[in-house]
């Protein structure tokens, strides 16, 4: 990699919130034309650092200096930083779904307007040009809502390019993308780099960082640990993990000896129709079973129908049920509502913590007791002492890091939020726990703890269903893995013998029926 001159220096940045030193003397140097990755555990201070850089926290609310292109800059707000050429693309996309790509690209309109009148012909021409730069071959008149997440992400990048960006900051750009889209995005970043764009990449996916970054700044507990420069594959994931957690993880997965009992939960020929599109089946005659003490994985690409299947089983909370049975201990049961599912000992931890798992206005305590509230109330009156005791117990057992159980869940890191959601469901004392992407968006150290908790659940004799898009995780944690493709269960594999390659084949290929497949309808 050619080493360009320094474009950005952040020197001794310290940012203090009441009671928390979020950033403590953080220093980072970014060179022109490189992809600079920032990694660190959740809560390490990555986002805070980027908020300082992009003017979310204005000059004066932090200590330290920012030198951009040799100039000491004092951003008063986001607009000032954008004006200076710093563009940030957040995890949550900021596009307007109802408007077209062109309209979104020139949302302020200033770039293509004369005296406040927008020249839409010019805008469209420039839009085509920008889309070409990010490798998107779509009609710029398409409404954003008709694009996939991956394409939307690229439109966001194009939008930043429209503003003559000097430094592009991407916050977890691939967390919502499937592997193909993620790969494509990384390719685009590479090609933009070759044209001289500087980008800062925040990501939890260490393999991505290893593949694409030119240098890596590792932050831990608000401090810079080190800056690594990458020379062709010299920085391994393990090396990064060591920097992030301050220790070497012996293994990314805790050791676990399974104690598997008899099958107790069985789903037969489950059929679910899409809630909005009549006739479209999101689960096509799916059958599977779970044994006591067993961790069963569901592998599949995004959109394969794993979440839809799980939520449909969980009290038909997704789609329209079109057939199939659930058997618990060999007895057929009807589970038409979430309340019934909870009563039958089923728990579902959703993949999207913030929109489906948590009420962000609640405290840890109120969240933990929310699903099992019937257990601590009589005639709808809640026993507050029992609530305190339960919350304290789970908070301790799950090792939730917080000042007290009265802390708001919104203030917790992703890993701790996930532990709160897990506690909420463990408090219902389920027999079957369905965990949908339980480690998404949480850091390496917290993942390890979550895996440990999953093992504990299995050791208590519960059945665990784990849905994940990360194959190494499924192979590392599960005992048995089903693969799902387009609403169909396409295979079943013993996790000890399966490989990423064998799973991937079944996750993408339905034409050939694998002989080891038990369900082949």
């Amino acid at each position: 990699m050619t080493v360009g001159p320094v474009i950005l220096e952040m020197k001794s940045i310290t940012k203090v919130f009441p009671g928390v030193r979020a950033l403590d003397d953080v220093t980072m140097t970014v060179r022109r034309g490189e992809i600079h990755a920032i990694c660190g555990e959740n809560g390490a201070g990555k986002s805070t650092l980027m908020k300082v850089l992009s003017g979310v926290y204005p000059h004066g609310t932090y200590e330290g200096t920012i030198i951009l292109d040799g100039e000491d800059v004092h951003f008063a707000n986001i607009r000032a930083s954008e004006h200076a050429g710093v563009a940030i693309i957040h995890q949550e996309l900021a596009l307007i779904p109802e408007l077209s790509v062109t309209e979104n690209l020139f949302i302020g309109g200033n770039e293509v307007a004369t005296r406040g009148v927008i020249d839409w012909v010019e805008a469209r021409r420039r839009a085509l040009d920008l889309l070409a730069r990010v490798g998107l071959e779509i009609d710029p008149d398409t409404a954003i809502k008709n694009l996939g997440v991956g394409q939307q992400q690229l439109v966001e990048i194009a939008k930043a390019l429209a503003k003559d960006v000097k430094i592009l900051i991407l916050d977890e750009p691939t967390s919502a993308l499937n592997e193909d889209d993620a790969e494509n995005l990384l390719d685009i970043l590479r090609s933009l780099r070759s044209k001289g764009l500087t980008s800062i990449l925040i990501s939890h996916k260490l393999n991505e960082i290893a593949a694409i970054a030119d240098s890596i700044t590792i932050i831990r507990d608000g401090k810079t640990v080190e800056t690594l420069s990458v020379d062709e594959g010299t920085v391994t994931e393990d090396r990064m993990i060591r920097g992030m957690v301050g220790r070497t993880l012996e293994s990314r997965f805790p050791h676990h000896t399974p104690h598997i009992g008899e099958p107790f939960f069985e789903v037969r020929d489950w059929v679910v129709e899409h809630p909005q599109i009549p006739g479209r089946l999101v689960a096509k005659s799916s059958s599977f079973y779970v044994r006591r003490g067993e961790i069963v994985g569901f592998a599949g690409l995004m959109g394969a129908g794993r979440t839809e299947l799980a939520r449909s089983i969980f009290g038909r909370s997704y789609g329209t049920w079109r057939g199939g049975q659930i058997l618990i201990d060999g007895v057929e049961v009807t589970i038409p509502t979430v309340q019934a599912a909870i009563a039958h000992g089923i728990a579902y931890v959703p993949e999207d913590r913030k929109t489906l798992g948590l009420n962000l206005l609640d405290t840890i305590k109120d969240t933990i007791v929310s699903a099992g509230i019937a257990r601590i109330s009589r005639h709808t009156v809640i026993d507050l002492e029992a609530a305190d005791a339960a919350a304290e117990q789970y908070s301790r057992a799950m090792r939730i890091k917080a000042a007290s159980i009265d802390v708001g869940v919104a203030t917790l890191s992703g890993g701790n939020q996930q532990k709160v959601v897990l506690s909420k469901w463990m408090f219902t004392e389920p027999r079957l726990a369905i965990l949908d992407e339980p480690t998404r968006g949480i850091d390496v150290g917290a993942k390890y703890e979550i895996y440990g908790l999953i093992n504990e659940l299995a050791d208590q004799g519960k059945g665990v269903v784990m849905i994940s898009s990360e194959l190494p995780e499924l192979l590392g944690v599960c005992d048995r893995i089903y693969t799902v493709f387009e609403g169909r269960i396409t295979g079943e594999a013993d996790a000890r013998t399966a490989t990423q390659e064998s799973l991937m084949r079944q996750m993408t290929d339905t034409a050939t029926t694998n002989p080891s497949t038990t369900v082949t309808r």
Partner: protein
Amino acid sequence: MKAIRQIFGGNLRQYGMSFALILLLVFFQWRTHGIMLTATNAQNILNGYSYVLILAIGMLFVIITGQIDLAPGSVAAVVGICVALSIKNWGFPWWAGVLFGLLIGIAIGAWQGAWLAFVGVPGFITTLAGQMLFRGLDQFIGKAASVPVPKEIRYIGNGYLPEWGPNTGLNNSTLLLGVVALVAVVAMELRRRRRVIRAKGTPVPLWAMVARLVGMAIALGYLTYLFGSGRYGTSFPVTGVILVVLVLIYNFIATRTTIGRGVYAVGGNRAAAALTGINTKKIYFLAMANMSFLAAVAAIMYVGRSTATGPSDGVGWELDAIAAVFIGGAAVSGGVGTVVGSLIGGLVMAILNNGMYLVGVGADLSQMIRGLVLLVAVAFDLYNKSQGKPSITGTLLRGLRMRERGEAKGMERPRAGVTQS
């Protein structure tokens, strides 16, 4: 400063709106040369505004679920005319008329709740339609006539507790209420303290608890004196008793029951609530049905006070209730708000209205000032929340709860502290 904190508990800022209320009282007491805080005026305020405060309680639950109800004024008008007519023309005894009115309130609430919960028409639309529908129904039934109500109903809206026993210089019913309230407050405080100790928390120092109890005793004593020292035959008004009972009941529902939790959960994150096993439709239905039920209660109190129904009964009530709830720290996006906060919000508006009337400010100017107060109060609240600080009044009760656990200082309660960004 630390001492004050330990007495009041939590963040002093939380008590901002309560202090604003006291400041208003002091200000008007000064401007009216002492008329504000006389027995007669205090009784008038309760009789004149209790129905708005009761509406505000109902509105609070609707707003916490993230909805709004524009119909309670019209519902109240229908209930009022039905109560009056059922007694006057159909020969219902007064209590049957009251029961009839409450049932009509519940039925109308069920109608609106069903459209919201089971058909999915947004509350704003359902109740805007309801506002027109029930206003029209009121006019259809009442033919714009004024129907008088019997003295029992008038007692509900304008009555006083009886005089009895020896001459204590105060109304003995009021005195009894004051003593009962004081005993209840002391008992609850001791129970709370026991609970903290049993849960191995750190209770507030004994002196702080004693200081707080002394403060409450003084406040209760003053209120007892204020309401009990009026002219012979007056006391703490019946409307006030109804209000206090409803506040206690609904505060309990909001903080201690699964239904209350459900209301906050649905407003905070509906999808997450549904996946938590909360019957969201039931919650919406109950919130709307309850609002109309309380509108019926308010209607009966109101027609009692005005001694007869009238064609413009209930016009604009919903807006007063909504204003009270938002001044009391609720969030437009739902999930946030407390019963006590709404009560204080409603009292601020009531005192302002009454005070300006006493000072001689015209209705025009008074209206403008109240509009500005609503705007400024909510803006101030939003500013506080954006600073990551708890809502002014929204955390009143939460603040108390946290103090119990001995973890009050510096801890923020996000139910009110985090804005919906």
